[in-house]
């Protein structure tokens, strides 16, 4: 029997919350965590779990510590009446001052995408349906995830009629909700991990990149440059290619983000993801089929249906990849050659693609 780790083994804590000081007037979250854990170790706060994880990886690799807590919390509904103002002001201040909402940048990115790739007529209809299918797929996945915020399926017609009612490119079902949530994971050095479990999951590659706060000022309005850079660097760290990964938890704050991220992560050629989604989802087998490859995306329901408590979201994404790799994902377990996948990745954003974090996880090869 393996020796169980204990709270007192934690040598540092990296806690993430996006705007708890605003929503809950809670400053110095580290002190709060110290009280809860009765620990007096170094603690730092980041804005996303992926950022916390990345920092924790650095600390362990530097040899500073062996066992750390990485967690995230967010309580957005406590400030329900002002949350959209806060979100937009923090995400893109000039756009906020000009009258932008948390939805507008997504819609403008979609308009830019349609224009850039000259998508018209029947293809435009297909693209719009593909975006609806993203949401339908994520809702369906969430019904198999007991932690998901939404536990019901929706239909393409529902998504489309919500857009029609709103007279906008995207509607209610295209966007992730406002959520409360918390997540945590223990990260250890390889040596410690092997003492604690027979099935450790490794952070094989991680990277982040940053882009302008002001979305309209970015060079390319149809893609997230930060994603491309972060993915490239994370892959380089692991020596893998995108198609070595079978499960991907990506940041679908809107259906457009899922579409664009498939391209930015290198799974689809620019301007083509809508086709792959549309073709895969017209006869959905549980995965996107892209150039003959199977890609399992947002198996936990994604941000759309699992929820998006900003500072905690990344933890849910990492958790899903972790469970899939360990073969513990229950009803939604994905299989590759009858076995749980060996590699997966999580893409998390802060802001509207202002920061992108890619974490590539992997387990040891089956013997």
């Amino acid at each position, binding site marked *: 029997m393996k020796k169980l780790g204990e709270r007192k083994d934690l040598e540092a804590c990296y806690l993430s919350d996006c705007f708890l000081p605003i929503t809950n007037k809670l400053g110095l979250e580290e002190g709060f965590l110290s009280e809860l854990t009765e620990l007096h170790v170094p603690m730092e706060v980041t804005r996303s779990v992926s950022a916390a994880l990345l920092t924790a990886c650095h600390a362990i690799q530097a040899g500073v510590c062996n066992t750390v807590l990485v967690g995230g919390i967010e309580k957005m509904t406590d400030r329900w*009446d002002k949350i959209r103002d806060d979100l937009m002001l923090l995400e893109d201040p*000039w*756009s906020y*001052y*000009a009258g932008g909402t948390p*939805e507008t940048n997504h819609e*403008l990115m979609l308009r830019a995408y349609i224009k850039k790739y000259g998508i018209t007529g029947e293809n435009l209809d297909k693209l719009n349906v593909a975006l609806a299918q993203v949401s339908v797929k994520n809702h369906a996945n969430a019904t198999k995830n007991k932690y998901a915020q939404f536990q019901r399926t929706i239909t393409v017609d529902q998504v489309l009629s919500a857009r029609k009612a709103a007279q*906008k490119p995207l509607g209610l079902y295209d966007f992730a909700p406002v959520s409360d949530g918390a997540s945590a994971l223990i990260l250890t050095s390889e040596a410690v991990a092997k003492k604690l479990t027979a099935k450790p999951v490794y952070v094989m590659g991680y990277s982040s990149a940053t882009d302008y706060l002001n979305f*309209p000022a970015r060079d390319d309005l149809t893609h997230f440059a930060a994603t491309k850079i972060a993915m490239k660097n994370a892959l380089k760290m692991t020596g893998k290619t995108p198609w070595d990964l079978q499960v991907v938890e990506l940041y679908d704050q809107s259906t457009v983000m899922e579409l664009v991220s498939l391209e930015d992560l290198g799974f689809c050629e620019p301007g083509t993801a809508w086709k792959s989604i549309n073709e895969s989802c017209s006869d959905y087998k549980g995965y996107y089929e892209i150039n003959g490859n199977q890609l399992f995306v947002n198996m936990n329901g994604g941000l759309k249906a699992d929820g998006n408590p900003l500072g905690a979201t990344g933890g849910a994404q990492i958790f899903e990849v972790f469970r899939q790799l360990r073969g513990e994902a229950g009803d939604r377990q994905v299989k590759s050659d009858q076995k749980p996948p060996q590699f997966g990745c999580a893409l998390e954003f802060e802001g509207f693609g202002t920061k992108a974090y890619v974490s590539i996880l992997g387990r040891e090869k089956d013997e």
Partner: protein
Amino acid sequence: MSSEPIERRVSYLGDRLKASRCKICGKEYFEVRDYCGNCGRKSFGKMASIDLFYEKGKLELCTLVKEPTNKFMKLGSYVYGIVSFHNGKIRVSGRLTDRIVNNGDAVDFSSLEGREVVPRFRRRYSVGRSDVVPTISLAFTLADEYYPHQEYTVVKPSKEYDVPGIVGYGVYTSRFRIKEGSLERSVPFIDEDAVTAAVEAGKIALIHSGVDSSLVGKIYVGSESNPYAVKPIASKVAQVLKLGEEDGDVQGVDAVDTEFACKAASSMFKDAASLVNYPQSGVQYAMVIGADNSQAAPRGCPGGELDVFVGYGGSAFIFGKYDVIAEIEGWYSCTSDTPDFWRRDGELFPMHGGRFTGDPAYFKHVRKATTKLMERLNLQAGDVDYFVTHQPNPQFPVKVAKQLGFKDEQYAVSLQVNKFGNTYSGCSPVGLAAVLDVAKPEERILITSYGSGAGSDAYLLRTTSQLVDKRQRQKLNVKFQAENPFLEYVDYTTYRRLKLGM
């Protein structure tokens, strides 16, 4: 808590849309930058400041906002998107203003995308009654609609005149109207107020005059609907229009607000003219603005009788001795303590003295100032080509003009109350602008303002040949705004809502 520094910073950059250009590589940035991201250290000191205030942009992409954030809630639905300047070198967020998007109205985005837009200086969003009113120019209107794009070109003066006079002027009224019977009145859009009208009028006057804004050494703004009891409109106008020599973020200009009901602006014409004529003043040009979102209580409430006549708009006149379009030949002012119309501090709407606003107030003072000036200058009614007076309603100016012996053709051109309503401080100046829009050189204009409280200022102006030369610079003249095909008419409820503002 909008006295936070960020409010000042956003206004400083956003009101004028300040930007920077790297002189080495040409890259442009919205906001002010000390160095270029491309060129790094070597670009320090090589960043040119540019601004987009007089530029036109292109609406690249747009979408509809139907559920705004809290502070934009009063705007209802609006079109929002990305606007580019300088062939896409600069891209900013913006909303289309001056459009009422009703629930159920379909907006065809592709019919808007790609069209030229003009930045407009507006209120940014709603704040509490005790807060600073935030403003911004990230609001745009389509250049091919009510408000065309006009270049601002500084013209080197060619001639110095012996007496000072008007060197340029501008009138601004909004795109919206309420029409009741034969009376049309301008209605502000919900993000407009006396401050935005003052800036618009000043901007249009600068464009018309070709005067270098840094040579304007004095700005007077007359208004009785300043959103603040204490805080001048003139300082906002000076900062946004960059009046006076700019040094850091301070403008070398004397800015002051004046108040005397509807003659708050016209009263200052002589002060402005005197100032530019005083050799030691160092003031080459002085600007006088009258702007009002004319206040009136809703109908049925005390003071609600005014609601039938009030309009919205502003006028700006620049005075100087160079390239004068109308010389000031003389003036006469009179005053008496007559409480015919007033608004107590803290009250939202003015009260008036019913029938005592006529004979003992308006008529007495207008007649007195006009006849005294004519006596002084030894003039008969037939000696002037145009007579302009204050227009609180369509009847009063006609009646007083007839009493003074003026004929229909002398005063008809100036009667604008039927088109815009009573624009209070902007009212008789709008009439003057309408005359200047059509007058020929060497014509005499007699203008007599009236302000409740009460007093009148009468001026005699004589036009010069430059009046005609400068006319072509002004697309947004009075007629253009009065008869514009893009006017939008609103019902009474909408009019009250828009007038109340954000």
